């Protein structure tokens, strides 16, 4: 039976044009909405699958303000059993701070008899892209960690993890307890059913205070680089444009 802790972060949906808040200090999610990153959606999916396969349960955790309960509910609606929120302003917390808080929750709960043999995170947060939380957490808990995991299965206390990169596929076999950061693409996150959403509203949600004041992320300023002005030259329409296109490729040194 493997209990899984999945850590998620409320971020502005960045699939559209990025808009900053009027003071330029953070990304504004007003128009695009908020979500958890695609990596974390896959982490939730993997966690739920592992829990289902081993008879365990998923706890979803976030560090954030009240609005981030929305992301916890989203995870609860697709199979997480309960949720924890560390009540804090996520923007004031750097990756080391976040790792420390997650470790505090894991340790506290372990003390109460709830062991999270597997902790899953997104490979990087969709907004800050630090690539550090999972690894720092692993050291805080003294556990092995694998990053960029796309598939993960647990069997008899060992997690088999698959990482795909441009070079090829790497397989890891790691004894639990362990930490893994998930890269999207290996599993398809499920959508919630209507009953799932209704249940999510009633699922247990614990709010805890942070264990210490944050050192901060080091962020000084944010800017959105302007798009370069381009002037597209239409080479033609349909297959008839092929000769002209090849001409261009040749000029660019590409068509040989």
């Amino acid at each position: 039976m493997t209990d899984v802790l999945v850590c998620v972060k409320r971020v502005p949906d960045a699939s559209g044009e990025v808009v900053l808040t009027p003071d330029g200090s953070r990304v504004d999610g007003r128009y695009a909405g908020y979500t958890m990153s695609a990596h974390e959606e896959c982490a939730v999916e993997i966690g739920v699958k592992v829990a289902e396969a081993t008879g365990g349960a998923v706890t979803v955790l976030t560090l954030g303000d009240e609005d981030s309960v929305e992301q916890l509910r989203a995870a609860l609606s697709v199979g997480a059993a309960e949720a924890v929120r560390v009540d804090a302003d996520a923007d004031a917390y750097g990756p080391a701070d976040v790792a420390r808080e997650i470790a505090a929750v894991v340790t506290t709960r372990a003390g109460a008899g709830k062991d999270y043999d597997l902790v899953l995170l997104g490979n990087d947060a969709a907004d800050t892209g630090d690539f550090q939380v999972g690894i720092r957490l692993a050291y805080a808990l003294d556990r092995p960690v694998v990053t960029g995991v796309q598939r993960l299965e647990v069997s008899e206390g060992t997690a088999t993890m698959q990482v795909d990169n441009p070079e090829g596929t790497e397989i890891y076999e790691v004894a639990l307890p362990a930490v893994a950061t998930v890269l999207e693409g290996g599993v398809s996150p499920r959508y919630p059913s209507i009953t799932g959403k209704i249940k999510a509203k009633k699922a247990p949600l614990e709010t805890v205070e942070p264990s210490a004041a944050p050192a901060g992320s080091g962020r000084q300023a944010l800017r959105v680089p302007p798009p370069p002005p381009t002037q597209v030259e239409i080479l033609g329409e349909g297959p008839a444009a092929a000769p002209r296109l090849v001409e261009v490729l040749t000029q660019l040194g590409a068509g040989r």
Partner: protein
Amino acid sequence: MSAVVVLIEIEHDGDASRVSLVSREALTFARGLGDPVYALVLGPTSPGVVEDCREQGVAAIFECPDEELSAYSGAAWAVALGAVVDAAGDVAAVVAGGTAHGNEVLAHLAARRDLPMAANVVGLVGSEPFEVERQVVGGSAIERTLLAGGTPVVSVAGHAVDPEPAPTPGGAAVLPFSAPIEEKDLRARVVRSQTRDGGDTSGLTSARIIVGAGRGAGGPDGFESVDALAARLGGAVGVSRVVTSLGWRPHHEQVGQTGSRVSPDVYIACGISGSIQHWAGMSSSKTIIAVNTDAEAPMVTKANYAVVGDMHEVLPAVLEQLGPR
């Protein structure tokens, strides 16, 4: 001045092995942070690697041929990196390319030694205090961040820095050494790996020519001409997130916010609308050619050249025009 330690990765170009493009970019960036520049290679060096390092002004190459390090392990590689840092004495910064391995190893080092880290840096703002600009929001925005409280650890975003030869070549002396790796550092290591088949392993991120395909491919069977054109031009295939989320192509081919960042000389975007998600991954391509039925699609309006038409008709015509390789 203080030294800079750079973790470099190797890529294989046919039989030869060279320092990867993104590592050369990292070395160029590192030269701006301190002197001398030391490189760490996990695995055997080669003449090509040495030559590249010399060109990049590397003073010495620490080579770590330990058996235990032959299979990748983030923790173990970080131990090796830490050993080099200790050997180097006064270190201004630790640098690596912003690849999956690069980011991971640096994060391990930062975690072990409680050092500040910034991923995907695109430029140095200043050394005292140490401030850099780095990519956030999947590459759509730039953050200026301060690294304080220890030796800064930075990964360099691919295609943000032009790799330039050093004004004077470096000594590039090869210094084999052993890393004090412990059992627990090997708890998470690769047990099996499979390289991608299909000839050229120069990789998506360092390809000079990329043929990209999106929803316009229509389905898993719609990539024939895309693969053919990429092969004909000696390039790689990249796809948009839509394609991978629909399961038509594997994730490692994805170009975009949640995939690879690429910066080829030529990017041919076929049937790709040009959403921010994808654009963030390839906007730094030197020349962008779009093939799309919609003349108003963002990819078309932002491209350098465009053909308005169906990729399934245009690409075969192009292949025919090109003739055999």
